[in-house]
């Protein structure tokens, strides 16, 4: 009698502890979106907002020059060619600039790519406002097509004063038709 009640209480506690275990397993996975949310809010880790920034007209800070570097990486399986048209630009905060990236699909079939951006240093990520960017959506290329893709951006006046150089890096990867890119 006493033994069986003990067994019952033991089992109850064990089930609860197993529940904690499962919850912690789920928590491990929940850390992934939490981490993204944290980075989005704080702009840490160069994760910038991948959408059109609402930019109010602001005064150009004529006294300050910032160097913006453009980088490209390809992580796609195919042999994409993907380069910025210029590698560096000296800009004034508050002024609008346009640059472009050239991409070429050298294969004989149409392919879709997606570019994911990252900004360094991470603290600058929140101050690069993009008004137009090829990274906002997937880009479809016909066989052997090449084209220039625009990027219009403005560096915010409030960019921390210690930042003198901002790097904008785009990593290209294949995107299957009809599928949106992970992390978008």
């Amino acid at each position: 009698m006493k033994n069986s009640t003990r067994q019952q209480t033991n089992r109850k506690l064990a089930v609860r502890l197993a529940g904690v275990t499962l919850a912690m397993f789920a928590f491990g996975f929940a850390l992934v979106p939490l981490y993204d949310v944290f980075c989005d809010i704080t702009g840490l880790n160069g994760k910038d907002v991948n959408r059109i920034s609402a930019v109010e007209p602001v005064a150009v800070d004529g006294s300050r020059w910032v160097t913006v570097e453009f980088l490209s990486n390809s992580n796609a399986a195919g042999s994409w060619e993907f380069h910025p048209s210029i590698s560096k630009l000296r800009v004034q905060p508050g002024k609008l600039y346009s640059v472009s990236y050239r991409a070429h699909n050298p294969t004989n079939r149409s392919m879709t790519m997606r570019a994911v951006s990252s900004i360094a240093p991470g603290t600058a990520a929140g101050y690069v406002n993009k008004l137009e960017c090829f990274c906002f959506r997937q880009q479809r290329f016909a066989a052997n097509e090449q084209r220039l893709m625009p990027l219009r951006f403005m560096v915010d006046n409030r960019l921390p004063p210690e930042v003198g150089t901002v790097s904008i890096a785009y990593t290209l990867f294949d995107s299957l038709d009809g599928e949106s890119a992970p992390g978008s």
Partner: protein
Amino acid sequence: MTDSIQAHADEKPAGLWRWVVTTNHKDIGTLYLLFALLMFFIGGTMSMVIRTELFQPGLQFTDPLFFNQMTTMHALVMIFGAVMPAFVGLANWQIPLMIGAPDMAFPRMNNWSFWLLPFAFSMLLSTLFMPGGAPAGGWTMYPPLVLMTGDAFPYLIFSIHLMGLSSLMGAINIIVTILNMRTPDMPLMKMPLFVWTWLVTAFLLIAAMPVLAGVVTMLLTDRYFGSSFFNAAGGGDPVMFQHIFWFFGHPEVYIMILPAFGVVSTIIPTFARKPLFGYASMVYATASIAFLSFIVWAHHMFTVGMPLVAELFFMYSTMLIAIPTGVKIFNWVSTMWRGSMTFETPMLWAISFVVLFTIGGLSGVMLAITPADFQYQDTYFVVAHFHYVLVTGSVFGIFGAVYYWLPKWTGNMYNERLGKIHFWCSVVFSNLLYFPQHFLGLAGMPRRIPDYAIQFTDWNQVSSIGGFGFGLSQLIFVYVVFHAIRAGRKAPARVWDGAVGLEWSVPSPAPYHTFQEPPKLADGQLQSEGV
């Protein structure tokens, strides 16, 4: 019903089959301890390969890939195969005896938790013979490097799943046993400290191990199923792995040291012949260390590029751990203060634990200083630090526990002279092995590298000599245990005259079944009394 159980009290299946089907906590404790000893020697052999290669600059015996396999496997085998199972073995043997329970709460699950381990480690060790070799990207398994592992990769992941499952079942079993199976006379705040530290450790296990299981599962899907958790090109982030891994990894550090705190808190009062100083503060210190261990993880990754606020937070929270740890150290010292101390082998291990663990703790505080850590990161200084806390900390704690309780387990005294020789060889050689690594690290020698600049040669040779000596000294231990089982002189029930606790109220060797009826506690039978 009860009568028939009593009548067959000591009946067990004969031969090896007994060990496969056993549900007895003492048998399973023995299995865990023997398994840990075997893994200690396998992992130790790997470290001998490492120290042989590092005896001289240049590449002598191994190619760099095999060297990296050795460092990675040495860590995995020692952490998950030697230290953790050894503590679970001690828990299995001692917790029911110390709280007056007839067995663990779930004896069959207990059997299963142990028998997962040989399978897990067969899988892990079999990778040494696979195309592409064993995992070589470090035990921390950082992507993208770990994703380059050859055929061994899924074996690595699944063996970690199995080890995790084993420790989780062990932890649940231990918590239920401690919370539900104590003899009615024993409230929580009168439990022996070893039981307390294991209770806290078991909670750390069920909070931390599932996160490890999750993060290695993410690695698996990244590699085989096209997910991009840690692939920057796919919108993931390799640094996120480090955050999730160390969210497990830091509590893991305390999983491996808290039971050793419990062991030392048991041994020192016995041989100082005084009750433990500050029992309650010991319990609270253990609990606060456990809590803090969950909010310090990023101190392992100060150099990945974090905002200043985060660096400061993790620096201060890490340093905060020194306070409860300091409480423990001072309590141990105060316990010895004006005690009638004798220096039997278990006491020697315990005292050396207090001294040497403190050295490891101090270098830990040095590493916690963020600006200094940028210099120390990934150097031999880190290697020296964690070997001081893990070898001269955890492993010395385990040795102390084995010498302390071996007469209870085998019924025979070990050879005191040989035990002391084992101790002195170990303590001299381990310091020869690890202390120079502080100098090497401060001078800039990186870890996980088979070759080094020639100015590091001298201290590496000293360290290697210490390594070989430490490795050989452990053979003495095997002989001591073997001798105690076979030929030692008979031990009385209360092996040490200063010892308190229920485990000493049963004869030596402890009968196969103990405390079928909850025991009554006599005055002065518990550590917590007289404080």
